[in-house]
């Protein structure tokens, strides 16, 4: 309860600050839209020539991509802490965070949130709608609930991986250059995993479970029954990933060395 009220307080503050810089907001909005557009065009071009990819149709792949955008947008809005090492460890901002009576990770999530990234989610919904109508998909009322669950699961998988990576900064002074690479690997999750070789598939499922952000949960809505087990594992994976990353984070905080003045 306390955490929710703090969250709302920060969020209203965030919006207030953003509204103060109107041109900035406008430019950002525009560039986000353009970015989304370019992404969409890319997908259409890539799959324009091939109608089938290992048994998946072009529209199905577009649907997966649309689905992927939703948890990714949530992740990017709240857990995008790629600059954690730079900002909090090297510059010593972590000192300040640790002197406040709220969980340190939660504070950082609040401080680093970027609500405008939620726009990507809307793009995702549009893309999904487009693909779904072309595929003549039908949905039940409970699919809405499952959709929310799967999206949250995917978000937490993503968040868990990136929080774990950020936690490494507590142990190593080196600036982590793995972050950009991770974003790349993350993108693999939005294509059907069975187009990859077995090792990569295994990695994307169990080690860096990015497949749970895109293809697995989306397969449910595409009625690919052979993938259902994985689909329903999505929320579970989310909880596991997130919990593990929290444990790693808490252990890391104990190791925090502070920055010299």
């Amino acid at each position: 309860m306390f955490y929710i009220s703090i969250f709302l307080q920060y969020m209203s503050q965030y919006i207030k600050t953003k509204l103060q810089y109107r041109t900035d907001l406008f430019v950002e909005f525009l560039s986000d839209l353009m970015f989304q557009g370019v992404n969409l065009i890319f997908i259409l071009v890539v799959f324009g020539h091939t109608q089938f990819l290992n048994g998946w149709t072009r529209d199905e792949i577009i649907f997966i991509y649309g689905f992927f955008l939703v948890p990714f947008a949530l992740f990017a809005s709240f857990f995008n802490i790629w600059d954690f090492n730079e900002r909090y460890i090297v510059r010593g901002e972590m000192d300040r965070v640790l002197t406040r009576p709220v969980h340190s990770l939660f504070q950082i999530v609040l401080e680093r949130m970027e609500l405008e990234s939620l726009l990507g989610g809307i793009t995702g919904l549009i893309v999904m709608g487009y693909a779904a109508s072309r595929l003549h998909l039908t949905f039940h009322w409970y699919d809405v609930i499952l959709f929310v669950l799967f999206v949250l699961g995917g978000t937490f998988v993503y968040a868990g991986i990136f929080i774990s990576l950020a936690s490494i900064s507590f142990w190593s002074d080196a600036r982590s250059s793995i972050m950009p690479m991770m974003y790349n690997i993350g993108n693999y999750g939005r294509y059907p995993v069975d187009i990859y070789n077995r090792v990569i598939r295994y990695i994307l499922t169990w080690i860096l479970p990015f497949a749970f952000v895109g293809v697995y949960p989306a397969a449910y809505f595409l009625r690919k029954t052979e993938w259902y087990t994985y689909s329903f594992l999505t929320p579970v994976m989310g909880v596991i990933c997130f919990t593990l990353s929290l444990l790693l984070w808490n252990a890391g905080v104990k190791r925090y060395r502070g920055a010299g003045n």
Partner: protein
Amino acid sequence: MYAIEVEKLRKEFKSYSSRSGLAGAFRDLFTRNYKIVRAVDDISFTVKQGEMVGYIGENGAGKSTTIKMLTGILTPTSGRVVVNGMNPHKERERFVQTIGVVFGQRSQLWWDIAVQESFRLLKKVYRVSDQAYNEHMDHVIETLDIGPLLDKPVRKLSLGQRMRCELAAALIHNPPLLFLDEPTIGLDVLVKLKIRQFLKEINEKYNTTILLTTHDMTDIEALCERVIMLDEGKIIYDGSLQHLKQNWGEGRQIHFQFRDMVSKEELTSLVPVTWEQGEDRYNWIAHVLTHDMAHVIGKIVSSYELKDIHIREVSTEEIISNIYEEGIHHG
């Protein structure tokens, strides 16, 4: 009950030294030369509720590291810390509710938003009720004279203005214990005075314990009766400032300006104390003990014609730097 209890507190950092050259860099890839640096070395002390203590030492003496362990930011390597009856790093979130922290070189406030918005967020974070907030903060805002700054964003404030706001922000939850790490660094005299005045006031009003690190000895003189002095991670002095001054700053410097040139030999044979030449041979400085002062002046005045004379007390600053140069032993 003590506000702070520290027993055999130690903090070690592992740092590695890199080898020189390209070949060395390759060797570093596989085996690193680790070196254990003891930043805080088995220190013990206690602070009573309501005390104002100056925590002093040179750069790298371990001041900040101690403060960070006392505030729960760092986990000690060994030893016992009890602050406000709690173990800072174990019960961090409950513990920090009872302390206020000001790091002079780091802002607690949000850069882009108005000061009062920062206050409002902190009020929420510390779960302060509207009533308690108004009662307490109205007074704080008035005393620190920051009323007109409240609707400005922090980035538009001068350093002095920002520092006063920082102090107010650290007191939103009216903590019984306040840590100030270099609170007056880079501030002008007027702001310094205001801040000191304010700290004294809250200490009297709420019996707030204050632990202060600073390089500015005038801060310590104005505020603290007790100082803890640190050198290379060890406490080398813990006691009253008065005592420190009596033992170390007993001497006075008397500056004589003579009408005629005099030599050191002449002076020494007349009054056997340490003489030091001023800018020329008309100016001489005598280092004497306080109770010899009258005697020395009397002797000189009766033998020479003088243009000017003035007496200077050894400043705390000089005392401290003497201690660091010579060690505490002879005091």
